[in-house]
């Protein structure tokens, strides 16, 4: 294993993680809800009366975050290697997969693990493993 120390950003990673944890804390302690993004977005599509407001509010907060960030400083550079076709396929698979799996990196990976949920531990191991395997197959076997 070769660690790329030049790209390693431990403090912003830990700090950013802690900030994410604070958002999770706020939502569960105030609204009694899990900050699982796929669940919050997916729940919108059920169109249940009385259950829409907080979802729309949370998502709009998330979407305006880069705009609020830009009020203070420039956004960090972003690299998206995948083509539009890759975005479409990956988005579709992520949409279906997170709904069948009842969660994503936030719902299972952060909230579920924080609650020591066995279900979330399995889910996290599976999607992390699948992520590692996919990158390995694409990058090192097919060398795309």
């Amino acid at each position, binding site marked *: 294993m*070769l*660690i790329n120390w030049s*790209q390693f950003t*431990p403090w*912003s*990673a*830990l*700090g*950013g993680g*802690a900030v*994410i944890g604070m958002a999770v*804390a*706020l*939502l*569960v*302690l*105030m*609204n*009694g809800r899990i900050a699982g*993004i796929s669940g919050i977005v997916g729940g919108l599509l059920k169109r249940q009366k009385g259950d829409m*407001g907080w979802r729309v*509010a*949370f998502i709009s*907060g*998330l*979407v305006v*975050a880069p*705009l*609020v960030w830009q009020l203070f400083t420039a*956004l960090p550079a*972003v*690299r*998206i290697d995948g083509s*539009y076709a*890759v*975005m479409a*396929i*990956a*988005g*579709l*698979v*992520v*949409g*279906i*997969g997170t*709904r*069948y*799996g*009842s969660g994503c*990196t*936030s719902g299972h990976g*952060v*909230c579920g693990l*924080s609650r020591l949920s066995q*279900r979330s531990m399995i889910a996290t191991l*599976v*999607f992390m493993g*699948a992520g590692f*395997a996919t*990158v390995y197959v694409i990058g090192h076997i097919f060398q795309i």
Partner: protein
Amino acid sequence: MVNITAWVSGLIFGLGLILAGMANPGKVLAFLDVAGAWDPSLALVMAGAIAVGSVAFAMADKRGRSYLGLPMNLPASRVIDKRLVLGSLAFGMGWGLAGICPGPALVLLGSGSVKGMVFVAAMLLGMGIFEILERRRFTDFFRIRKLHNDIASAVSGSPPSHGQTGYVKK
């Protein structure tokens, strides 16, 4: 008030993702590339989030209701089934393909990235497909149950019962 706290939570979540580097698909893929020049940063994002999150959930578990008086809506399922595993497998593959998961996708959308928009549109389509398939599964369940009852009553000669017990026991 409920919507304000939800909005602030979403905003803080998004700012955390940007600070952490999670909103940069290139960095996420560098984390997932353990056989390449590995960038372990994102493991620390999870560690930081869980450190704060576990305190919050420990507090939440002691409360019947939230500080705003809402019921604690925490998942109670403990089932580990094919849906959980295969769904997570598919999600992980999509994540490894683009380096984008649902939260960062919405942040990319807000930062005006066209690729982020394509990803979000496709993700919503995928979630919509799930919703349609789930609804069909649900109606199929009731249709099959009714069919069972009809057959059972035809065989026994008693009038069909479509009560809550479901199956007619003879």
